[in-house]
């Protein structure tokens, strides 16, 4: 195979990986602050994907523009989920929280199945078949838009956490729970906000994903796992790590799909997960836990 085929596939994989990264960023933020592993993460993304599909097929609204309102809807969902359901579980054993979110995920998948049926749905935008040509590179326009939007969204999040007072307060909660309580922060509200922000990430990522892949109700668990693979690879709790992990996994999947068969591509992602768990459990950019 000529070299530029590999290059094309690699660039496509990196762009998809950026969207993966944004999805995983949501998981990472939630874990980093609330210390709850959101095992319904991919399922929440499938809600966003179905919202994008419905908005597109009913009103012809472009998922790239709808990304913002969909992120807002998911924010509200995440906020409500954390303050209504998960908050009492903060002090419970880890596996108890985990099972709670497994239950939430199970409910989401099957409610979507009841409402939308098992068929795959797509978004056919006007630019679905457009591409950019840069030298020997031919890149899908949809992937470029999605990748750029993911980077912008992630950048906005970085700024939020670094600059704004609320962002700083959230980081304070993550660093020292008791200390945050002592200085009078409303930790429960900040936790709910954080979960909402994490959900908004996955909402935006979901809207973009509809440009790249088909949607079925059953994809939720797959993306939950993928998000975990990415976050563990990049370093749980590290924001740049999530993006880096996303790019790495996107690239691996794309190349594996080209060299072997597309349906086996996730095996390589899992292989990376196992290697990382064994040899660098804190992830590529993660700090070693105490």
């Amino acid at each position, binding site marked *: 195979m000529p070299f530029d085929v590999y290059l094309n596939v690699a660039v496509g994989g990196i762009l998809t990986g950026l969207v993966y990264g944004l999805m995983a960023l949501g998981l990472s933020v939630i874990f980093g602050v609330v210390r709850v592993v959101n095992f319904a993460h991919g399922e929440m993304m499938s809600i966003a994907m179905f919202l994008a599909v419905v908005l597109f097929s009913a009103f012809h609204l472009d998922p790239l523009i709808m990304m913002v309102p969909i992120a807002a809807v998911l924010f509200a969902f995440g906020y409500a989920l954390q303050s209504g359901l998960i908050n009492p579980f903060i002090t419970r054993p880890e596996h108890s929280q985990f099972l709670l979110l497994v239950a939430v995920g199970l409910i989401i998948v099957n409610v979507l199945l009841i409402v939308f049926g098992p068929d795959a749905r797509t978004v056919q935008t006007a630019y679905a078949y457009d591409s950019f040509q840069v030298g020997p590179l031919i890149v899908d326009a949809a992937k470029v838009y999605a990748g750029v939007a993911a980077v912008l969204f992630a950048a906005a999040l970085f700024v939020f956490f670094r600059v704004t007072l609320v962002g700083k307060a959230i980081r304070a909660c993550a660093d020292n729970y008791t200390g945050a309580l002592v200085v009078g922060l409303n930790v429960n509200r900040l936790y709910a906000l954080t979960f909402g922000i994490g959900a908004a990430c996955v909402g935006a990522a979901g809207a973009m994903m509809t440009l790249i892949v088909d949607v079925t*109700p059953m994809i939720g668990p797959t993306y939950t796992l993928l998000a975990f693979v990415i976050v563990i690879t990049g370093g749980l709790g590290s924001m740049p790590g999530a993006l880096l992990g996303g790019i790495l996994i996107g690239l691996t999947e794309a190349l594996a799909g080209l060299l072997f*068969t597309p349906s086996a591509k996730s*095996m390589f992602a899992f292989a990376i997960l196992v290697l990382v*768990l064994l040899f660098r*459990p804190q992830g590529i950019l993660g700090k070693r836990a105490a």
Partner: protein
Amino acid sequence: MAGIAARLTDGLSRRTVIWLVFLLAALVIAPWLLNDYLVTVLILILYLAFAGQAWNIMMGFAGQLSLGHALYAGLGGYIAAVLFTRYGIGPWLGFLAAMPVAAAAGAIIGFLAFRFGVTGVYFAILTIAFAEFARIGFDHLAIVNAAAGLFLPVAQSAHNDLWRLRGDPTMFYYVMLAATLVALLLCRLLMRSRIGYFWLAIREDEDAARAVGIPTFRYKMYAVMISAALTSFTGVFYAFFYNNLFPEQVFNISQSIQMILGPIIGGVGTLFGPILGAFVLTGLAESLNAALTAFGLDLPGAEQVFYGVCLLLVVGALPEGIWPPLARRCGIAERAS
């Protein structure tokens, strides 16, 4: 033998024994009283009770949360089915072949996880990753017909062939009943032995267990391997009962989740929790299905939504499951988790 018998019966009140005998007698005569549909439901209940017992050894006894038990069941099913369809080797010998393979798979996962300090939620994710790895791998494995699925020949025979597991639902029912009974006795035995107390210590506080000299690595490995070997039987049974195997189904994460629902709802770490949980959950789910059918509704995800809601309610309101409080009320003492 006397020691084993004493361990099995030691500490059981007369009341408990009467209940157990009554329950067992009811289950033995059930096929004569029930129609084929209800017998099939009972098979499903016992199947989940057995799988729950097997999973419970790992999570309930030794405190290691596995969400990838579909791997061991799938391996068992595929090994027995391939041996049967290709070489005419019967399911019981197939099970003997499947057990060490499943145990070895468990040992590999356990070794990697316990040696490299992968614990808690990371461990759960590692188990899912291996099950998913197997799902995709078998989807591309020509020897098991890949994604097209493996089918067992269905021969209409006049008599039940227990050796080759070909027969009517009643035969499968008794096979599963016997298996569940064996699993229950085995769990009781394990629980009351040195290994069970070591597991308990590891579950409650691993550092303390190591400090008092328990070889925690080795005993966690035992838990994974015994649990995996036992779980492989559910796969063998599945293969011969349903006569088809698809990687997409047998290795699916939803299979793993279904296996753990019974013990979680019944009571993790108890002996009767998995059985009670399977009865309650499957009973309610089948009633729900019957009700939906009666109203003419066809909702393919309704049962799973119901499972999700049950899990949510039990994890939220009854963290120790429904059996421990029930047992206390009935005056049947069992060590709660």
